[in-house]
């Protein structure tokens, strides 16, 4: 997993909680190193899960909610870090529709070792998009947060419902997204 996910996660922890919380989360996650993540590095995805459960335990919050929160935070960071992807786009559904066919394609060019999910997009109407997430990393809560963050960024609060298509494993999740 790309280092940017880790650095952004820890920054969010510092913002929303405190530097002490960052310290404790790292301590508790019992990593094989001291938690010195750099955005340009690549780290095992399990470390992300370890950090997340550590945060959940210490903050006594459910992990899915934290992941969702992280998704929203991360989207804001993408807006700052990758303005090119936003050029000329005004509709959040238009943006989300292209995540798989364009954005993650470009992301892979930038970082050939990125581990990206698969999204199948189906634009059922101008106001509705069905986005099916598929990934062995089961981070649909992160996707959820990113989607909500996207709506917020475009100033169009989205109505998102989700449905697990993989018998509760979280590997395949369909989001039905509508905008006002």
């Amino acid at each position, binding site marked *: 997993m790309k280092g940017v996910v880790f*650095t952004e996660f820890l920054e969010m922890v510092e913002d929303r909680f405190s530097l*002490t919380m960052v*310290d404790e989360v790292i301590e508790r996650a019992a990593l094989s190193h*001291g938690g010195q993540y*750099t*955005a*340009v*590095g690549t780290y095992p995805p399990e470390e992300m899960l370890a950090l997340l459960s550590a945060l959940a335990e210490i903050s006594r919050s459910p992990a899915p909610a934290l992941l969702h929160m992280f998704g929203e935070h991360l989207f804001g960071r993408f807006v700052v870090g990758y303005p090119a992807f936003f050029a000329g786009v005004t509709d959040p559904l238009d943006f989300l529709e292209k995540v798989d066919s364009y954005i993650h394609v470009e992301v892979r060019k930038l970082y050939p070792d990125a581990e990206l999910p698969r999204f199948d997009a189906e634009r059922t109407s101008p106001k509705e998009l069905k986005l099916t997430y598929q990934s062995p990393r089961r981070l649909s809560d992160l996707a959820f947060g990113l989607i909500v963050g996207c709506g917020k960024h475009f100033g169009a609060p989205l109505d998102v419902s989700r449905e697990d298509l993989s018998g509760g494993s979280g590997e395949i999740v369909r989001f039905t997204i509508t905008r006002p």
Partner: protein
Amino acid sequence: MTNPEEVYKRALERERLARKEAERLLEQKSRELYDFHESQKRELERLVDERTRELSVARDQAIEASRAKSQFLAKMSHELRTPLNAILGYSEMLEEDAKDAGRARDVDDLRKIQVAGKHLLSLINDVLDLSKIEAGQMALYLEEVDLDALVREVVATVRPIVEKNRNAFDVQLTGELGVARTDVTKVRQTLFNLLSNAAKFTEGGTVSLQASRDRLGLRFSVRDTGIGMTEEQKAQLFQPFRQAEPSTARRYGGTGLGLAISQRFAELLGGAIEVKTAPGAGSTFTLHLPLSEAASEAPAPQRGASGSEAPSHRGLVLIIDDDEAARELLGRILADEGYAVAFARDGQQGIELARSLKPRAITLDVVMPKVDGWSVLSSLKAEPEVSAIPVIVVSVLGERSLAMSVGACDYVTKPVDRADLARVLRTHLE
């Protein structure tokens, strides 16, 4: 455990290590990029090299093909002239006979044969000239030329042609033209072409020739009051085999090569032909020839560099070649270099002359009928009397190593490069 100072210390330590890790990764990426860039560069250079090689091979092939074509044309023209001379000669004789016997119709028919034959001959001569020019084998013979006499001569030759179309012929010479160092044959032919061209395309008008000489050189202006040309026709004027219209050739005759040849002659002499024309308004062709430049820039081979006449302070070289043009060319180069030359038309004669003349060196063609160059070489090397004479193989075939292995002292490819041959001779004779 949550001592703030400790927390900050650890945070700081993480930042420091993260920075180091980032720097390491950055360095690694930079190197990868650098290597990638280098390998791309090498690949690109390799491709460029490869293309360059391919292009140069293609270019060499094209040059070789064009050379072969010119040589073929030159040879063919040569071969065509021999039977044509017989046709012309015998029809002339028959015409005399017919005239004596009072057979008017036969005289008429035989004259037609001669006219057609002469036309064919001029066509062949033109093709030969052009192919020589294009093969870069048209040599210049520079000598002191009495220009006034030359103009008088051309005017006399061309007058009947001009007057045939009921044209007035107006010749204006501004002062004396004097003497110039130039190639008389080429100037004569060019003037003749320009004048007969003007005559052909003008009927019941005036053809005029103005000649002058000044600081810049010689100017010969040929003006006619004939049909003139459009811009388009003018643009094609100096292209071989082009006349204003295909029907023009039938109506006016001519090979269509005259102007192309004249133009190239003018260029060879360092000059140019300039045209002013408009449809219905006649045309003016002006031949410019520089004076001193032509003489100093052009190579100055001597006329008829044959055997005994040439200065022989460097000794005698025997040229064995079945091709007359090649013999002549080699002869001229060698004469220029100060050698006396002797010629042999075939292998047999070559061996005999080598024996009787004992030349200082021999240039030997390979492809010859009956006794080829290799046989000549082995005969020469087998005779103690002549075996020590250095033999330079001169051939279109790239068989240097074969030549050297059977006893040649050096090898020069045809068409012969003057400097190359001179250098080879110097190496082996001095």
